[in-house]
């Protein structure tokens, strides 16, 4: 391919964020007074350090070994070339750096290191409705939003009628947007975004408003754009959409490119057992363990029938998901729960702790292990990802919510005791329960005999 027709080139893009260090509390009055006097200077240094990374010295290897404890590499040395007309899907777990990468490419935030070059106008569907003002009319908002997204007044003038027609709010075009229903406002906002004509379209589905209708519109818009030979960068957890729409996929893991290639292979790699998710996660340090003031998560793992950590389980076997958490404050009612996702990103089911000994009971300080048991012959074969969360009740407050933190595979099997039996063909569905079937014998003839019908 001609090297001149690139749309996006990135070389060694890195982004460092500094997370705040814990403040040192003084326990004496004198200490507190000195602290108070010193604090403006300390605060100044603290805020300055949020964007100055002089202490993270040049060179990847040096940084890797001697990095200060309070920094996070959201992106690390990411390089790629995207040619014109390519539709590239960026996939990876939450926190892998996908959204950071898009924010760098849309110039919202600068990289800490590295370089990127973009040829053509960029528009992103992640900010549908940005800058919409409730007090302004639909007409005024179309102009404001259009220019915010990078159109000129002339371009909006030219497309104005189309935008209004697409949105279906003709009658209310001079009414303030605050009188619109939320559906109308979203339609109008989307109509503006859909009429941009960027050379490069960026869609962050993760950040998009999660309604199915909108996602469908995003996808059909992407197909249009692709047909016009424009370049699309697409961030998604929806693997079938990536597989269907993209010509290439890039898998990010911990801020680095883990794989770059045809979507099928990359998605396969993402879900394969040696991929990014392990069957066990553990936090040794209470300070950095996920959680808040009441409870902190210490470990999550997948248990096999024998009680050991299991990567893979037989489809017929029970599988347990165990979370160990520390309760730091007594007297709260806790509700541990899991969401189980399949490899298409669909939630197969959610489950709340229903242990009658603990449901609606206050917990005392200490360590707990809560295990959910999924019966054998319930899940279908494939890879499953687990989101582990815990809330405190009344008022409901999230203590931790770790998305798709561990995963495991269910190994298909056939023969007696399986839902498949000796059927070797396709078994679709999100679950594969072994259900009770009854068949009764009525009579020798095959004629319909209404009167002879009986209830089982």
């Amino acid at each position, binding site marked *: 391919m001609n090297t001149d027709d690139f749309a996006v080139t990135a070389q060694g893009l890195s982004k460092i964020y500094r997370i705040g260090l814990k403040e040192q509390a003084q326990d004496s009055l004198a200490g507190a007074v000195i602290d108070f006097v010193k604090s403006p200077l300390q605060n100044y240094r603290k805020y300055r350090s*949020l964007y100055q990374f002089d202490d993270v010295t040049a060179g990847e290897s040096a940084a890797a070994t001697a990095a200060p404890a309070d920094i996070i590499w959201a992106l690390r040395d990411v390089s790629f070339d995207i040619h014109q007309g390519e539709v590239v899907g960026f996939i990876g777990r939450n926190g892998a750096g996908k959204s950071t990468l898009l924010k760098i490419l849309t110039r919202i935030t600068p990289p800490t290191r590295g*370089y990127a*070059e973009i040829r053509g106008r960029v528009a992103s569907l*992640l900010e549908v409705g940005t*800058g919409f003002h409730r*007090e302004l009319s639909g007409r005024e908002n179309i*102009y404001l939003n259009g*220019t*915010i997204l990078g159109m000129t007044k002339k371009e909006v003038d030219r497309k104005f009628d189309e935008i209004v027609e697409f949105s279906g709010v003709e009658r209310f075009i001079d009414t303030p947007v605050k009188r619109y229903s939320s559906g109308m406002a979203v339609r109008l906002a989307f109509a503006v975004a859909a009429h941009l004509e960027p050379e490069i379209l960026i869609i962050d589905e993760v950040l998009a408003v999660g309604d199915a209708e909108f996602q469908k519109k995003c996808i059909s818009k992407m197909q249009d754009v692709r047909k016009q030979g424009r370049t699309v960068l697409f961030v998604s957890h929806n693997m079938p959409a990536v597989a269907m729409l993209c010509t290439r996929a890039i898998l990010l893991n911990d801020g680095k490119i883990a794989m770059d290639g045809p979507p099928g292979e990359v998605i396969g790699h993402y879900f394969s057992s040696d991929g990014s998710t392990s069957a066990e996660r553990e936090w040794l340090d209470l300070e950095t363990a996920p959680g808040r003031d009441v409870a902190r998560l210490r470990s999550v793992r997948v248990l096999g029938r024998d009680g050991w950590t299991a990567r893979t389980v037989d489809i017929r076997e029970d599988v347990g998901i165990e979370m160990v958490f520390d309760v730091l404050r007594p007297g709260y009612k806790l509700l541990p729960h899991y969401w189980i996702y399949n490899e298409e990103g669909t939630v197969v089911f959610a489950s709340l702790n229903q242990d009658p000994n603990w449901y609606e009971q206050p917990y005392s300080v200490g360590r707990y292990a809560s295990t959910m048991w999924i019966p054998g012959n319930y899940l279908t074969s494939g890879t499953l990802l687990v989101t582990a969360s815990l809330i405190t009740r009344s008022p409901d407050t999230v203590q931790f919510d770790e998305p798709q933190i561990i995963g495991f595979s269910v190994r298909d099997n056939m023969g007696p005791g399986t839902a498949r039996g000796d059927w070797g063909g396709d078994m679709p569905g999100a679950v594969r329960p072994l259900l009770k079937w009854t068949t009764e014998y009525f009579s020798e003839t095959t004629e319909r005999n209404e009167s002879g019908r009986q209830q089982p």
Partner: protein
Amino acid sequence: MKPSTNDMPVSVIEPPKGFEAIDFAELGRYRDLFYFLVLRDVKVLYAQTILGFSWAILNPAIQIILFTVIFGKIANVPTDGIPYFLFSTVAIIPWTYMSEAMIHSSQSLVSEQGMLGKVYFPRMIYPLTPVLSKLVDFTISLILLIGVLIFYKVTPTWNMLLLPVFVCYMMLIPAGIGLWLSSLAVRFRDVKFAMSFIIRMLIYTAPVLYSASLIPPEYRLLYSLNPIVGVMEGYRACLLGGPIFWEYIVPGMVTGVLLVLTGAMYFRRMERVIVDVI
């Protein structure tokens, strides 16, 4: 139709590198957005109020009456023979513009942080929008000013032709302060609390409520380094006639220009890291 690559704008994304020049070409490409943001500010300001744009007149009018009673009647501040009401009207109207524009400009990045994190356009548009949108209020309040001038039978002089110069000079001040403080406010929310104090200080450090002739001659240069002094003296000379005291005006103009230049430099340095700090 496949777009051709040759005529497309190429943008380069790099880490911030200290001080950077102002990209006027980029600002030019976004002038329509600038226009619509100003329009939004103007339209939204008096939405759902009964009095609407009358507030642009009422606000300074109430202040003028208050100051006339306190400083003109009770404290009897000397005003070089000009009736106090007339004397303060000429100053309060540009002052109202400057203080309003300063307050909004310095908070512009913080109050628009939702937009800041979602879409890119030259950040400098944020603090400069109030500098323009508040001019609409200013223009409306000129009705009040003209009314007062007619009431006191002030005869226009050739000085009035210089008014546009002083309007531009007046705009330098909120622009400069806004550029400095808006980027500072992102890092230090202290700016918001300091602002009401700064505004109150500024009105007393400039000849808004009293005459500059009260200042002893040996401090005159130091005093007129405050750019607001020159604005007030300029407006009085333009509208009320009489000699133009350039020695009060030129030092302030120099500080005003310096304020904008240094503010723009500082803003450029900060604008790229704003999103990560806000």
